[in-house]
């Protein structure tokens, strides 16, 4: 029998970086998006099959705010890892992602995470320098450029995170 694991994952990112679009297309969801604006969180599930086991990523999509102080940290309690999302066309969102990571690290210690640079399909508007990304990778970060529109890199990112968590 294949072992099934559940892991709580938080989706973090600045305003309008496409987190919700990412999960909307690629995950199983039963709740409407109004939850985000009302309760401030929406739960979705992404099932990752890792051949020897199945990992159910329970995704807590937290309402995106550029002001990280308004983040409800209690939603992060019990998270096994998190997904940072930034908009590749807006460098400021990467700054928000970085500060979000610092905030999480300060409160919950080091947790596995991946950084998604979304809106990969808008290549001509891409505004984040490759060197910067390289720097992050060399410091141990797993960075993936994704496109919620084409689906590029999305499964890859969740799969990688699931592997890290199930290790």
């Amino acid at each position, binding site marked *: 029998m294949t072992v099934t694991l*559940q892991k709580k994952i938080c989706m973090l990112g600045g305003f309008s970086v496409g987190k919700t679009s990412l999960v909307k297309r690629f995950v*199983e969801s039963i709740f409407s998006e109004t939850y985000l604006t009302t309760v401030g*969180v929406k739960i979705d599930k992404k099932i990752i099959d890792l051949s020897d086991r199945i990992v159910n990523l*329970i995704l*807590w999509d937290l309402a995106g705010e550029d002001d990280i102080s308004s983040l409800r940290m209690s939603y992060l*309690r019990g998270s096994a890892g998190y997904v940072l999302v930034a908009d590749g066309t807006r460098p400021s969102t990467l700054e928000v992602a970085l500060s979000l990571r610092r905030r999480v690290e300060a409160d919950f210690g080091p947790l596995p995470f991946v950084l998604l640079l979304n809106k990969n399909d808008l290549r001509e508007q891409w505004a984040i320098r490759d060197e910067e990304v390289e720097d992050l990778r060399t410091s141990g970060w797993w960075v993936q450029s994704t496109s919620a529109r084409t689906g590029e890199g999305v499964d890859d990112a969740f799969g990688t995170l699931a592997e890290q968590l199930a290790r």
Partner: protein
Amino acid sequence: MTTSASATLERLVRPFSGDAGIDRDGADRAGIDRKALAGLLAQLARSVEPQSSAEPSDVPAVDPRLQQLRTLLVGHEIEVLSRLSEVVEDPEQLASAVGRVLPTAIALATNDARLGQALAPALAKATQSSIRHDPRTLVNILYPLIVPAIRKSIGETIDKTFQSLNESLKHSLTWRGLRWRWEAWRTGTSFAEVVLKHTLVYQVEHVFLIHRHTGLLISHVAAENAADQDPQLVSSMLVAIQDFVRDSFTGAEQQGLDTVRLGELWLWSEPGPFATLVAVIRGNPPEGLHDQLRSVLSRIHDERPHALESFDGDSSSFSDVEAHLSECAALGQRAPRTAERGFPWLVALVGLVLLAFAGAGGFRWWQHEQAWKHEQQLREAKQQIWDGYVARLRAQPGIVVTEVGRRDGKFVVAGLRDPLAVDPQLMLRQAGIDPTSVISHWEPYQGLDPEFVLKRLQASLDPPPTVTIMVEGDHIVAQGSAASTWIERARTASRMLPVGGPSLDLSGVHDINEGAIGKLSEAIQSNDIHFNFNESLPAAGQDGILDQLAGELNELASLASHLHVTARVMLTGHSDDAGNGTFNLSLSLARAETVRALLKKRGVDPDLLAVRGAGQFEPLEASPSEAARAANRRVKFKVGIEEQR
């Protein structure tokens, strides 16, 4: 290292440690057997140079060089040892040394189960002693934990009571309610229980066991036919909403959301230390269900405390928990099968019941009304009787009513009463009034009413039967005949009557002496019986007079008896003045006695006759002639009429 170095040295200087004779003849103060050492050194010398014949001899007892050697070889170790032994032997230093490492040691040993076992008894004792010393410490520690739990428990109990009360009230007067009352009576349960049983129809549809820390689903069970959504997502969302409430509203930090209602769906959350049990209930669950859910949750915690605490998303090992959850999901109260009943029949029955109630109510009202009327009539009748009584009292002579009223439910009458007046108590009984329901107060007085004056006169004058006294207008009139003594007394009494009151008219009373009895008396008194000189027997020829007298006396006796008076006839004997006075006295008495005897002989009652002797002292004629003397020798009669005694 220090230990091993000193051990080597020990072996070196004491190759034969079993030899007990060493101490006897060569041990110096430092404990080194110098003789043995010398021997040892000589052997060493021989093994290096077999020819050596050096033998230890005359070893001095004390050799400072040896001490020096020792200091050189193991001086540092000795210093360390002495420092250590100093620490070990001084309790204070030892305590401070152990204290420095104790936290680290305990931290390192936490994984060893024995540490917990070893510390448990001491900790228990320490806790007990601390509580005994100052219970507030424990209270302060437990306060934030216990108070919300108590508050919640009390809240639920009150809810339960209200629920029961509400349902009971809601159904107490309906047709259904009556049926349930019957059921309660039949089954011997309380009405509230029956009401709850019928009204609280509910079904537990889903039970989630959610890990508190991560919000991940540990186990989920759904009832048959329950609509299903991804339980993992649902449970996480539930936790998210709990967090949301907890964050958003102050005061909810410690509690969170324990009840959510969506139409007929209820969401009840029972938090445990590591896992929360959430039940989705359709219908109207009784508050007592909280207890059942909590009991299941605590059983799960009791069975799997460690697995719950360290849950990391792998729920495969919790398959046994499902059995417990299924138990919860099976909970429910089905709607009781409604009997097929014809609506008109029900209406008719309800109508009948209502009519019966109305009839009973009307009858009761009528009864009440009748009773009230009856009472009213009784009261009126009593009042009438009373009024009549008072009126009669007022009409009574010798009674002056000054106050009539009611007090404390009793009739009150007060006034003045002549002792001769009728007894008001007797009148009460005659009127049929219970004397205990009347308060009477009578002051005595003497009335001037002619009736009372008459009564009083009759009592004091005691008139003979020949006299009748009656009231005529304002006067009292006496009529008839009476002895003059009575008439005299009556006159005196009449004069004593109060002025202004009725007077006594005695003009109608005649002195009986003036009538027949008077004539008879005169006739008797007109006769004398004559005697001869010095004789006590009457002179000859007087028998006729004696016979006549006897007849008259008997007539007098019968007339007196008829007139209710007493007649008395005095026979006085007389003598002439010849002879001795004393003799004459006895002669005159003898003459009277003789006459009485002679009259007695003729049938006269001797009690009527009294005798006396007057001697020569009451002469009829005082002349010294023989004729006068003869006239004086006689017996005279004197009739007296007196009131009867």
